């Protein structure tokens, strides 16, 4: 057993313990860690966008290649800050917001149907064996659960919908059961850091 002498490993270990202390109770160590992470991540992304995006774009595209439309979009982006300025300029922030919303909407409207179409096509498989038939029936009932207006009074839809909800619960149960091992792996990773890297206990 050789406890680590690296100060960075010690800080890492203390950070790890501070987070786990939340499981007992909200406490000053946790609070220090929490405020630290909120601050550091915000600053990290400022530095990340600054060096990884903003400056390279300005250098290569605006200065070297003279693509001046970036300046137009840059000025538009600056309007976001109007939101926090005093006085009557706050509404100016709507311009970049509108561009952003339009751009996102365009993608939703053009691209989002593609993957569902593949799912839809795959649902039309030949019913060759028992499992295919069961899959087909379960899919239809599960689909019925999401009928909000059609066949509100029809007993077929209401019974089908009820069975459908059970099918959904089976699907959710499957996802839940599967996820557990992934989540436990996450703790095992931290645990092997604490035991092997920090305390120097040989594991396994």
């Amino acid at each position: 057993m050789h406890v680590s002498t690296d100060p960075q490993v010690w800080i890492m270990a203390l950070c790890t313990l501070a987070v786990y202390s939340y499981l007992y109770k909200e406490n000053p160590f946790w609070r220090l860690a929490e405020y630290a992470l909120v601050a550091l991540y915000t600053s990290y992304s400022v530095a990340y966008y600054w060096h990884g995006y903003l400056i390279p774009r300005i250098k290569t595209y605006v200065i070297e290649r003279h693509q001046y439309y970036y300046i137009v979009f840059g000025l538009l982006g600056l309007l976001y800050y109007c939101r926090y300025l005093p006085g009557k300029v706050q509404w100016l922030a709507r311009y970049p917001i509108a561009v952003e919303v339009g751009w996102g909407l365009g993608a939703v409207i053009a691209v989002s149907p593609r993957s569902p179409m593949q799912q839809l096509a795959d649902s039309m498989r030949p019913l060759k064996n028992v499992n295919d038939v069961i899959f087909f029936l379960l899919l239809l009932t599960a689909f019925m659960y999401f009928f909000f207006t059609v066949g509100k009074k029809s007993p077929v839809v209401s019974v089908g919908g009820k069975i459908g909800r059970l099918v959904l619960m089976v699907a959710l149960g499957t996802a839940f059961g599967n996820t557990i091992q992934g989540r436990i792996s996450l703790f095992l990773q931290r645990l092997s850091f604490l035991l092997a890297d920090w305390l120097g206990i040989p594991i396994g």
Partner: protein
Amino acid sequence: MEKLENIDPRWVYLVMAILLTIPILKPVGLALGMDEGTKAVYNWVESLKPGDIVFGDVAYAGGSDAELSPQLSAWFYHCMKKGAKVVMVAQWNTGASLGYKVCQAAAEKAKKDGYSAEYGTDWVYVGWKAGGTTTWRQMQVDFWNACAETDHLGNKFSDLPLMQRVKQWTPDMPVMIFSAGSPGVPTYTNYFVGWPLYVGNVAVQAAEIVPLVRSGQVKGNLLGMTGAAQYEVLLWGGGPTVKKMDAQSLGHLWIIVLIVLGNIGYISKLRKKG
């Protein structure tokens, strides 16, 4: 008995921590089952001939290290063992360096065991390239141009013998993606139709990937830590991840015990109420 219905969550947490720690220190070694998906991936690599080119894709970052790095490591070692040539790309920039370290360690291990695993001739780590799916699509047409002719370490493609054979990413070069989310599998199901696709999954995704396996879009998949452990069993008969599976078993057992306790408490409360 009714107290069992409301155990303080802190006890739940404490027992969980203890139960996971013990088997890490002293593994028991319970036997594993075997998934069809794992066998499919293993048999595929087993069928590779020396000199075949395969692609690997690192589409995960630190958060999924515990699940996907062991998979990557075992798969990569297996490829080196069979003499296949591996080109690694990375869809996540945050995980590119991590993936490189894993591959490098696996290559070292393969070398130690007497297999050829030279960087540049047996494998190349191309790493992350900006531009998303557009870039990936261009790789099919002109791999060199799409990657700006440099690998993760900054080497020129022209200095790497293996890259002379990879001017284009053609459908005879299958891909194995280690995926933790988005971007990930859809890049290949949408743009690489016809390329054999294998997936290393995080457990969370396992349920969602099934429809793709059903439709044949995915040829084989590894499921989280279990998948890695199964692969290690097939490859080496055991390994570091296999040891961790005991802790998994105990963790699952504790959750099952909790569910049983909770129900006993619930039922006895119902009885009391009459």
